[in-house]
């Protein structure tokens, strides 16, 4: 395949940034999207230019490091996957592809397509944990039975990879799907109950302080989430928060 690429280039947080045109040929449908960018970068390097910076690591859809807004969609045109799992067979010969960073006030651009998602970590520092000593002097794991249903639901919430697609795709740049998922995981498990009120209050406060917007129930986050995190988690987070107010 031969493709035209329009890629966002930006030197740093304070640079204005602009779209730059590239063309690439001999793209195989079996390549992943990131492998296509590898080939492009090799080409740019050989021509004496500076390669396009983008984030990636595991390349198998689990670390949450890759990002990219592709043709106006977080992680590109396919559903339920990350950018590293997107394959070029989803595109046609001659296509023009727009590639941009995940844009949100709370995710400043570091360079080109790389953004700083540190805000997610800072929210977690405020309560994304259960306060248990790591000494190993804990009770036997089976002394607290947990229903399969609760464990499965907690697991579904816990699969969030912290990629930020939900934020990038939301017209309000809301982080509620991400925070809701974390709050839910612990809310569903008996171990997380004791400090549930503080957890949700503190995490939501930090989320607001980071400059994320509010949820207006558009649901775009759920559609673009590579891990199928459902809106129910936002509802549960809101319930948990209301509980602390009464």
């Amino acid at each position, binding site marked *: 395949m031969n493709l035209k690429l329009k890629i966002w280039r930006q030197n740093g947080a304070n640079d204005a940034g602009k779209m730059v045109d590239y063309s690439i040929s001999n793209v195989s449908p079996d390549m992943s999207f990131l492998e296509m960018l590898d080939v492009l970068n090799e080409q740019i390097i050989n021509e004496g230019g500076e390669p396009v910076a983008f984030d990636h690591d595991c390349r198998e859809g689990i670390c949450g490091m890759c990002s990219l807004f592709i043709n106006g969609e977080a992680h590109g045109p396919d559903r339920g996957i990350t950018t590293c799992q997107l394959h070029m067979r989803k595109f046609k010969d001659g296509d023009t592809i727009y590639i941009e960073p995940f844009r949100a006030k709370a995710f400043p651009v570091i360079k080109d397509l790389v953004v700083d998602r540190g805000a997610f970590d800072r929210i977690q520092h405020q309560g994304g944990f259960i306060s248990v*000593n790591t000494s190993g002097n804990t009770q036997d794991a089976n002394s607290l039975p947990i229903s399969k249903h609760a464990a499965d639901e907690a697991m579904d919430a816990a699969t969030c990879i912290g990629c930020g697609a939900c934020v990038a795709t939301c017209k309000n740049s809301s982080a509620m799907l991400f925070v809701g998922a974390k709050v839910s995981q612990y809310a569903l498990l008996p171990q997380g109950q004791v400090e549930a009120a503080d957890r949700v209050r503190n995490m939501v406060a930090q989320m607001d302080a980071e400059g994320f917007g509010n949820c207006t129930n558009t649901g775009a986050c759920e559609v673009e989430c590579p891990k199928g995190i459902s809106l129910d988690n936002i509802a549960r987070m809101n319930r948990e928060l209301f509980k602390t107010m009464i």
Partner: protein
Amino acid sequence: MALDSKVPKGPIADKWTNYKNHIDLVNPANKRNIDVIVVGTGLAGGSAAATLAELGYNVKAFAYQDSPRRAHSIAAQGGINAAKNYQGDGDSTYRLFYDTVKGGDYRAREANVYRLAEVSANIIDQCVAQGVPFARDYGGLLDNRSFGGVLVSRTFYAKGQTGQQLLLGAYSAMNRQIGRGKIQMYNRHEMMDVVLVDGKARGIITRNLVTGEIERHSAHAVVIATGGYGNVFFLSTNAMGSNVSASWKIHKKGAYFANPCYTQIHPTCIPVSGDHQSKLTLMSESLRNDGRIWVPAKLEDAQAIREGKKKPTDLSEEERDYYLERRYPAFGNLVPRDVASRAAKERCDAGFGVNATGEAVYLDFADAIKRYGREQALIHGDHNPSAEKVDKLGKEVVKAKYGNLFQMYDKIVDEDPYNTPMMIYPAVHYTMGGTWVDYNLMTTIPGCYCIGEANFSDHGANRLGASALMQGLADGYFVLPYTIGDYLSKDIRTGKISTDLPEFEEAEKSVKEQINFFVNNNGSKSVDHFHKRLGKIMWDKVGMARNAKGLTEAMTEIKALREEFWKDVKVPGSADTYNEELAKAGRVADFLELGELFAKDALVREESCGGHFREESAETEGPQEGEAKRDDVNFAFVSAWEYKGEPADAVLHKEQLEFNDIELKTRSYK
């Protein structure tokens, strides 16, 4: 220097308890005056950082990713072992110990493995208390599955995302300590060198990957937890950033590098499809619990399949060769990874491969789907279900167990594995070698520790499934926090270590020199160009099977490639910004040295064991014909290499392995 493993005296079952009862402790008030650096925040580093902070030390933690949650441990799919015997199928500390030593082909240190088995049960308790949502059965109790190389069901799992959930558990423990200010987290920071003062590890030099700034960090001890070096092969199941640099830097300053040639080739990966490929994707070994592995029994069928004239589903049961079940009736599809990998290579080399390149075998779920479907129908009270219903119910069960893996396969290969068998082939996965450490997990540099996949200690020549996660967490949560305390108890009066010392100055200078060299070299070939060529030499000559001729050639070729790299590498961009190519250049430079030592180590080891198969050392007759031939008389040692400049000049030290509690036997899975 003679290698002293510092294994405590006494019966194996009491060693760890006795040891803990007699080490020196640091009083809580003094811990506040002690700094510890932890490089790497995967399962090993993350759990260590959280625990050391919990104990009261000041911890500085470093990772090259933007968050600890993205460390490569996140990718582990299958599960984590623990001798809990919840299933009542005969598991015990001893049995886990035995399986691990045998699985490692008797090249691990007994005392370390026993300790690992001993603390394993604790890990599960700890993680559950942290809210890790392990799979549960309908009674609300923890569920288990089994993995290759063992006959009991001791693997705990969280769908196909066990590593993710365990890492998020360790990450949450870190978050708690970061929130309290006990851990200072340095994301997007790469360790560039270690700093020794009076022979002791007292700090590191890092590069801020965003700003390019070179920084000095001091501490009373340094813990390396930077994972494995499988990326020396370029194509592997590792994350793209996985590297050997931190381990290699300490090696150059005096830490011995042990067993570099022990690499695990994992049998169930998605086969290579073309030159563009940047990595290989693992399909969890847990699939082998239900999937049956086969190739066509007849060469002409294999050829017809390769040419697209036949489909796997066209072949009847008799036309298939379930070669693992045939060769290893006791373990069948669940033989250990090295055995399964070599068997696949053997069939493909003989012409039975099933994809276009002839390097793939089938992993088939048709039988499992039927079996589960019938079982489900019975559970639903249907004693005479239609074939469609069985198929539907069976697929639902398989989906619940392996759904995300099947989806992953479908996305990459564009084929639906529910209806046609998967294709798999071995790929480089895990490195059993690494920095040499003693029982305390300390390297040959005083005050420099090494944990998790980066060290060599617990797996011998092969690693059984679900045991790396176990080792990472055991080291970080339960072992290092004790052993490092014993060392630090001598440091309570030292006070803060100054970063103005000449040793820091000098280390920083040499780091900057290398960086300046790269950005000014103006060569003509990219970093990846060299990395790919190195990977090809490694795979062709230092891969699944090795011989003296190939290894000698590999050493020469890698040396020549290294020279070319330093002349001709091209690193665009500048040193003082975000520059991925620059970061890669440093990593590949280290791989180019490690690769040669790797080949040298493989050349010296004239036996076959675990992940090291020397073609010259195979059984020629008897029931084990064609299987790996170990040589306990001459090679029951750990090779620990001392750096002397060029990798070819490295000096070999041997730690003789003693087996007092397990009898050395031929490893048979028949």
